[in-house]
Structure formats: structure tokens, C-alpha cells
């Protein structure tokens, strides 16, 4: 079943185009990544999916319903943002009680084990927690809610590498146990990209790529070889970066063709890691569209 559907969706705030004619949809029970630079529109897009914001134009469907101000959708979505998720004067124990009543699939056992995993003291108020601890509370609520759609918008601010690793591990294992739709936006791409089945790359409010994670490496890669030979094949690709040094060159290409290119004799194709791919793609965004 299609869980999120966007048709010509735009969002304008004070004459400023935040999201520009987005079209995409995806199936339920996948972990998808929303990637892009700061200010690209990721958070706005997540707010629209979560029903917090309306779009200026276009149609948005979440589980075949319009999400904005829709209680039926809200109950199925858990949206964890990078901060200010909870009232600062609330004790963790009170928060747990509220969540148990609010989220229909709430799992208390999961919540308890996450409290222990992150060393959270339930007698503390949110405002008494460090930034990382506060983020851990968000992570705990996001996973324990077991909502049909869980959205994490850079939920790990202040969490150290150990805590982040525990979070990714717990999230994946809980997803394997109870498959559901998870939308995740992050800048720490290499830490989590192996969890994503699909990625959406957003730049200046526009959708640059809508692609299966492992197909990305087939589309964006480096070619190294003698400058002469590089020049010969250059025009077959969209060039994202080009460097030459001592008679040798390296180009980062976006390969839009269906079939594999035959490389000149002394040229080599090298794959890039996910972080580099996203950096190159978002730097040269306009050329891809």
C-alpha cells in the first residue's frame, strides 16, 4: 500500500518558495531517508507529511487521507524533531503515561528497555536533562510509539557516537520485529545510510533524486584516468566535479544512461561513499534536474 503520496506539492511562506512542485510516493513499511543541505526544505516536507503544516498548493495523502489537522492521521504518525518535542516542565514518568494513552501501538516494554539503554532517570524533568539526554527521550518515544509512520528529523542532537549507535541498532532491530514506515532525515549520512531502503534528495525545495539506496552508487561515481581519455568520454555524463593533475584527471559523474559505458583503456570507474555522493549531487543540483 502507498503510505505517502505527493502531487504537485508546493509550500510558500511570505513569497518564499520553501517546497517547489514535489511529486513522489512510496510504499509502506520502508525506512526512507530525506537528505539535503540545511534549508533545503526537509523539515517543511516532514511537517506537511505529519499534518502540522498545510501545503500552499498540490495534494498530500498519508494513508489515502489528507493529513493536515486530521486526527485520524495524527494518531498514526509520531514526529520527533531535533528539539522541543516535549513540555520542559514535564517529568519523564508523566510523559510515559501520556504516550501510553495517546499512541495506540505504544509498547511499554520497549520504552522501559530504552530508558535503561540511555540511562534515563524517569523522575527528572525534561528541562533538567542534557541536550543529548533530551534527544534520547525523543528517540525513546519515537521507537516505543511503534506508530505506523514514524518521522525522525535529525533526532540525535547532542547524543554522542555511542548513544547514536545504540539508537540506530535499536531502531533497526525493532523495525525488523515490527515493520513500519520510518522517515529519517540526517546529515550524518554514512552513519545511517545502510538502514535506508530509499533516499529522497532535496535541494532548494525541489526533489533532485528519488532512488533506491544501492542504485545511487550506480548513478554517481568517479572516473579516473589520463586527462586525454577523460576528455573523450566526458560529454556522455553530467559532470559534478572535474579535477586534473599531472596529466591525470578525475571526474565525478552523474550517469543518466540505462546501459553501462565502455571505459577507455586506461580509465577506471570508482564508487563513492554515500556521504560524498550526496555532497556532490546537492552541490550541483540544478544540473541534474
Amino acid at each position: 500500500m502507498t503510505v505517502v503520496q505527493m502531487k504537485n506539492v508546493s509550500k510558500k511562506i511570505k513569497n518564499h518558495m520553501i517546497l517547489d512542485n514535489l511529486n513522489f510516493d512510496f510504499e509502506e513499511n520502508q525506512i526512507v531517508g530525506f537528505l539535503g543541505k540545511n534549508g533545503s526544505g526537509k523539515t517543511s516536507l516532514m511537517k506537511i507529511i505529519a499534518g502540522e503544516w498545510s501545503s500552499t498548493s498540490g495534494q498530500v495523502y498519508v494513508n489515502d487521507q489528507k493529513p493536515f489537522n486530521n486526527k485520524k492521521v495524527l494518531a498514526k504518525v509520531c514526529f520527533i524533531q531535533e528539539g522541543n518535542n516535549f513540555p520542559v516542565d514535564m517529568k519523564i514518568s508523566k510523559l510515559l503515561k501520556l504516550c501510553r494513552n495517546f499512541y495506540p501501538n505504544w509498547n511499554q516494554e520497549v520504552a522501559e528497555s530504552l530508558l535503561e539503554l540511555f540511562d534515563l532517570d524517569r523522575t527528572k524533568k525534561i528541562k533538567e536533562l542534557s541536550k543529548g539526554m533530551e534527544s534520547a527521550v525523543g528517540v525513546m518515544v519515537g521507537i516505543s510509539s511503534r506508530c505506523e509512520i514514524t518521522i525522525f528529523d535529525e533526532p540525535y542532537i547532542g547524543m554522542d557516537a555511542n548513544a547514536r549507535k545504540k539508537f540506530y541498532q535499536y531502531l533497526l532491530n525493532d523495525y525488523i520485529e515490527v515493520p513500519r514506515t520510518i522517515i529519517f532525515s540526517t546529515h550524518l549520512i554514512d552513519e545511517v545510510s545502510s538502514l535506508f531502503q530509499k533516499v529522497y534528495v532535496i535541494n532548494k525545495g525541489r526533489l533532485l533524486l528519488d532512488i533506491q539506496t544501492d542504485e545511487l552508487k550506480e548513478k554517481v561515481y568517479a572516473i579516473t584516468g589520463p586527462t586525454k581519455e577523460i576528455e573523450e568520454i566526458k560529454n556522455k555524463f553530467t559532470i559534478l566535479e572535474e579535477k586534473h593533475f599531472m596529466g591525470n584527471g578525475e571526474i565525478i559523474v552523474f550517469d543518466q544512461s540505462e546501459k553501462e559505458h565502455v571505459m577507455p583503456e586506461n580509465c577506471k570507474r570508482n564508487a563513492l561513499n554515500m556521504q560524498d555522493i550526496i555532497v556532490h549531487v546537492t552541490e550541483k543540483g540544478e544540473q541534474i534536474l
Partner: protein
Amino acid sequence: MKLDVNSEVPIFQQVAEIISNEILNNNILEGQQVPSTNEIAEFYQINPATARKGLNILVEDEILYKRRGIGMFVKEGATRKILQQRKNEFTHVFLKPLLEEARRLGISIDEVKKLIDKQGE
């Protein structure tokens, strides 16, 4: 046994390689069941769909077969098949780069042969 999520090799391909290696090393025998998609996903911390893709490559290559509702098993003759594949790749993956580097260094083919003999002793 190690998987590198930031490697240049796609993760699903690494999954397929790891399983084939374990078959070659006789850690999983022909006829035996291989770990499930979820077990692989959990162990290597990757998306289950990626793990599934890796296993499916081996099904296509007729190294594994599916038993509905039970899991995936190593086919009879799988070891020989993997060996054959690896031998075919040997020239491309190992020999060609070796000879390229030898040419760059001005080492003749005869000298390379001698070096191999010496190393093999």
C-alpha cells in the same frame, strides 16, 4: 565475515560475497540453511531489503534455493559453482592489475614468473 557499509562495493554484493565465502570455507555446507534476511540485517545492521537483495543474487546464480516458508538453503554443487566463478574472475581481479604494475615497474613477464615461483616455495 566483515561488511563495510562505506565501501565502494554495494552492500548487497558484499552480503552475497560473505555468504559465498562461508560456503567456500565449508562453514555452511551444501544442503544446509543459510541465515535469514532478518538475521543478516540484524547482524550487519543493514536494511532487510538490502540483505534480501544479496541473498537473491545467490538464488539467481543457483547457489542458494528457496524453500517456501522455511528459508534459503545451499544447493548441491554450489561450492564447485562458486569456485568456477572465482576462477573466472581471477584473471580480471588479480592477474591483470599485477601485470599492469609489473609493466609500470619494468618487470618482465619472466621475472614475474620467477617471483611467483619463489613466493610459492
